[in-house]
Structure formats: structure tokens, C-alpha cells
């Protein structure tokens, strides 16, 4: 079952000619054909194009291509529908983009391709990445491979479900308030949100520009390190990407974690935390201690304000970013008697309920008379939240928390109440507000039904090496990430 392999396992077999890239691609496509009717992770894929690219990879391998230079050569990778892939559709889970075809590759797609990856499909998401369940997709809801009556999390729910169901070897998603880490936790896979500025956002359709980052979903931590190494680095086309050198993340994994200092923020042990989640996280912490980590309690005093800060800043930035969807240059157009009516009709028909809610909220908090009270105040609280983390990181190397307060919830359970849905992100939003990095790794299961639980490790700005190292030591010593969902 080649589709079940990790990146490192597959490339080892490709390098020694134990299998071909075409066979691996074929295995993923067959898996998609078999299970995606239930999981519904993919919005579309082009099988012929994928197989042609796999054959090209096989030729490159036969010609002696070097896996050190092209670490993803022949690896089938699918991406969230928010990333532009040249000459392929991009919808962002929305009707408003209509028949849009990307005229160029996002930088991360260019880098995947340069590393030899076969980029082969678009994954479902909450419309414009606004949501925590994929129920806000204009097309359909993706379901959790562990229990198809439940949601996979969101907004990158398709990206998490596709990896959990072995439909792709790895995927890319984007994380604005937890949209990689939360679905990774709920689907039992590894999800990494890089430090703001680590990965170029060029060709990532913008939701909240000061919070968005692209990151990988993988089957183990080693693969996350490999993917991060490929997609990271300065890009002259994104002025917020940072000229910080890109370390060899995969090479840094084997150091062990003896003496590593881990902080447990007391503010994260809240009332809404599910008892089974708490139990799994507590035993993960004990496991990290056994591996030699030193634990200490820390305080992030403004934790309780992170959600409110996020729900001002993200909608404000979204209201500006989504102004481009006006029916003039691309996407849906619904005519009106003049331009103003055309804009209103197009946006009224093209956006779904959650996107309208956030644009209107964002417009309001930026409007004359309310800017200081909401937006400027939120930016100041953002400073306090960032300072909390920077202060904590003077004492500890990483922070450990649950990724989510509960395991996957039922489809429809929270979709009627936007505020309740927002609260499923409470453990993840602060990392985006502060601009730091974070990873979610599988750390156990609830008993009945059996649903994955995620452990979150938060790291210093550009401290990805450290959290990858800790997460790697953990997954190698426990093996939770190897469990497979009960799909036929």
C-alpha cells in the first residue's frame, strides 16, 4: 500500500527502485476513488496530469536525480484550495471565484515542484479559510476519517482528512487562527504552523495578512521537517517573508531532548477542557519528562484576551482583503443598474454566511468612530499577548498545551452558533496573534467513540527546529501517529 507510506519511506523506496513514482501516484488515486466518496476531502484532481508528472519524476530518477537536492521527488502531495496552482482552478471553498483558473503558481507550489513533488489535487476548506469544521465550504462538508458523522476540523479540514485517510502522502494547508493545528489534532495527523514570515504567502489567497501562514500536514514529524525545509525562506514577492537562514530541519531531529525546558501555561487548564483530552495531554507531558525534558509551570496572563483580539484583527484584515472580489476582473458577476449595485449583488450572491458575517464585523471595527475602540485596542492587546510569550520563552524552550479543548464534534453540532464555533480555536489563536510557531502531534484517543487527540507545542519565533525535535522525540517514543482510521 504505497499510499500509506511517509515521505521518507516512499523516497527511500523510489531511490532504490523498489517502486516507481507512477505506482505511488496510482495508489493515491485509487485510494481517493475508494474512500473519498465518504471522506470528501478533494474538491477536484486531475488524474491524467498527475500520472504524467509521476512518469516525468520516474524519468528523472532513472537519469540519476539526487534526492538530497530534490527531497520530494515523485511524492504525491495535494494542497488546500487557497493556494494558486498554475492553470488549475482555485475556489477558496467559495462560489465567488466561479471558474477562476490560477495564472501562476504560489511560491510554496513552485518550491514543491522544484523539490520534485507531484502536486495533484485541491482540498476542501471553510470558505476563505473562515471556520473550524469545513461546514462553511460552499461545496460540501468534509468528514472525519475516524468517524464520518463528525467534522475533520477546519479550516484546512480537507488537508487533514486526506492525510489521515492516506489519500495523499502529505498536504499543505494554511493557518490563520489554528486552521492547520486544529484539524491535524482532530484527524490524528501532524500539522505545523510556521513562524509568521518563515514561509512566503505569495499565491496564498489572503484572509488576514498579518496572521496567515502556509504549513504542512504529514504522517509523522520527520516529514513535517522535510516539508518545512522545502517551503521556507525569503521570497522577494512577499515583503513580509523574513531573510532568516533556513536550517536543515530534518537533520536537526536526532538530538534527543534531555534538559529541554518545557512550560505549562496555567491559563490553558480551563473549565471547558474535556476530561479525556486533559488525561491524554497529562500523560504526554509525563512521557516528555521521561525523555528528559524539564517541566515548569508558566503564566501567559493575557491568554483570555487572545480570542477577542483575534476576532477583531482577523475580520478587519479580511474585510480589506476580500474587497478584491467585486465581480469586475475575475470570478462571479451578478449585474446591477450601476457599479455599486453590481458589487453588492455579486458579493451578496457569491459569499456564504460566515464570510458575510466576518466582512461586516471587520468593516464595522474599522469604521469611523469605532477604529480606536476596537481595532487599535486589539492591536495594543496583541502587543501584550506577544510580550507574554516572549517573556515565557526567556525561561523555557517550548510551551506545551492541548491543541483543542475537545475531540472532533458532530457535523451540525456547532454550525448554528458562530460564537461557539469560534471557541474551538481558543488554544491555537494566540500563536497567530503573537506570530510564533506551533505544531500539533497525535497524543492519544478518546475511548468511545475512538477519536484522535492532539498535543500542541509552541515555539519561539523561528524556533521550528526546537519544537520539531521535541515532537519527533515524542512521536518516535509513542507511535500514536501510526494508528489508522477505520476506513474500508
Amino acid at each position, binding site marked *: 500500500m504505497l499510499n500509506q507510506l511517509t515521505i521518507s519511506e516512499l523516497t527511500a523506496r523510489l531511490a532504490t527502485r523498489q517502486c516507481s513514482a507512477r505506482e505511488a501516484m496510482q495508489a493515491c488515486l485509487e485510494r481517493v476513488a475508494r474512500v473519498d466518496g465518504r471522506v470528501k476531502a478533494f474538491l477536484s484532481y486531475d488524474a491524467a496530469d498527475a500520472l504524467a508528472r509521476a512518469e516525468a519524476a520516474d524519468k528523472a530518477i532513472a537519469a540519476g536525480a539526487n534526492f538530497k537536492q530534490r527531497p520530494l521527488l515523485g511524492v504525491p502531495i495535494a494542497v488546500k484550495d487557497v493556494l494558486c496552482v498554475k492553470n488549475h482552478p482555485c475556489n477558496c471553498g467559495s462560489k465567488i471565484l466561479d471558474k477562476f483558473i490560477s495564472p501562476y503558481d504560489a511560491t510554496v507550489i513552485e518550491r514543491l515542484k522544484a523539490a520534485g513533488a507531484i502536486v495533484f489535487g485541491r482540498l476542501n476548506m471553510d470558505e476563505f479559510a473562515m471556520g473550524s469544521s469545513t461546514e462553511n465550504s460552499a461545496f460540501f462538508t468534509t468528514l472525519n476519517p475516524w468517524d464520518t458523522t463528525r467534522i475533520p476540523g477546519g479550516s484546512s479540514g480537507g488537508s487533514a482528512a486526506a492525510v489521515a485517510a492516506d489519500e495523499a502522502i502529505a498536504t499543505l494547508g494554511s493557518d490563520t487562527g489554528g486552521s492547520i493545528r486544529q484539524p491535524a489534532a482532530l484527524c490524528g495527523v501532524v500539522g505545523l504552523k510556521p513562524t*509568521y514570515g518563515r514561509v512566503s504567502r505569495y499565491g496564498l489567497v489572503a484572509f488576514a495578512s498579518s496572521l496567515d501562514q502556509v504549513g504542512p500536514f504529514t504522517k509523522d514529524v520527520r516529514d513535517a521537517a522535510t516539508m518545512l525545509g522545502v517551503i521556507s525562506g525569503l521570497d522577494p514577492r512577499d515583503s513580509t517573508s523574513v531573510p532568516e537562514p533556513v536550517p536543515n530541519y530534518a537533520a536537526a531531529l536526532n538530538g534527543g531532548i534531555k534538559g529541554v525546558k518545557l512550560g505549562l501555561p496555567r491559563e490553558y487548564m480551563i473549565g471547558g477542557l474535556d476530561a479525556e483530552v486533559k488525561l491524554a495531554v497529562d500523560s504526554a507531558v509525563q512521557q516528555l519528562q521521561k525523555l528528559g525534558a524539564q517541566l515548569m509551570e508558566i503564566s501567559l496572563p493575557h491568554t483570555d*484576551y487572545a480570542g477577542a483580539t483575534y476576532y477583531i484583527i482577523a475580520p478587519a484584515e479580511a474585510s480589506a482583503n476580500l474587497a478584491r472580489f467585486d465581480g469586475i*476582473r475575475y470570478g462571479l458577476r451578478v449585474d446591477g443598474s*450601476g457599479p455599486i449595485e453590481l458589487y453588492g449583488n455579486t458579493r451578496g450572491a457569491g459569499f456564504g454566511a460566515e464570510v458575510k458575517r466576518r466582512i461586516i464585523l471587520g468593516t464595522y471595527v474599522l469604521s469611523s468612530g469605532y477604529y480606536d475602540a476596537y481595532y*487599535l485596542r486589539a492591536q495594543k492587546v496583541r*502587543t501584550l499577548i506577544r510580550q507574554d510569550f516572549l517573556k515565557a520563552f526567556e525561561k523555557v524552550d517550548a510551551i506545551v498545551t492541548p491543541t483543542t479543548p475537545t475531540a472532533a464534534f458532530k457535523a451540525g453540532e456547532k454550525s448554528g452558533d458562530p460564537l461557539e464555533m469560534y471557541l474551538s480555536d481558543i488554544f491555537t489563536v494566540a500563536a497567530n*496573534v503573537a506570530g510564533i510557531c506551533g505544531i500539533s502531534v497525535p497524543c492519544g484517543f478518546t475511548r468511545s467513540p475512538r477519536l484522535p487527540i492532539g498535543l500542541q507545542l509552541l515555539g519561539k519565533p523561528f524556533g521550528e527546529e526546537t519544537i520539531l525535535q521535541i515532537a519527533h522525540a515524542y512521536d518516535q517514543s509513542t507511535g500514536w501517529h501510526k494508528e489508522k482510521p477505520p476506513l474500508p
Partner: protein
Amino acid sequence: MPTTGFDVKYVAHLARIELTPEEERKLAAQLGNILGYIEKLKELDVSQVEPTAHAVPMLNVTRPDEVRPGLSNEQALRNAPSRAGGLFMVPKIVE
């Protein structure tokens, strides 16, 4: 009071989103709740705090002012909902 001054119809107009009366009614209630939640920030004294716009501020990122290749006219118009003569077609703006 969170909902004071919050006129859904007016803000939706600013955002150029046409809403049905049903959407207006629903949004007013939901946004009232959300605004109630974000009012929480008023508990904090931020008078001495500088705002953060970006976590990693990069100042004056520029490139040489040189002509570079961009999208061709055909590529730029490929996704246009309406086009003519190498241009985007729009409704009449000036009388």
C-alpha cells in the same frame, strides 16, 4: 452596550454586500453576540501600550525600480466575467 450604533444595513452597504431582510435580521443578532464577546478587551488598560500591526515588522522592503515581466494582456483577462477589445467590460460609471 455592544449593539449601540450597529446598523447592519449601513455597514453592509459600506462592505458592498446586498443582504436579504432575513440575513439582516440574523446577522444583527449574531453580530450583537460577537460584539459582546469582543467587548472583553475593554477590561484592559492599554494606555501605555504600543500597537502591533505585524509580529515581525519588516521596514522599507523595496526592490530596484526596474521593469519586470508581468501577466500578459491575455492572461490578465482570462478570468474576466466580461471583456471586449483587450479590456474589462464594466457598467457605465459616468453619465
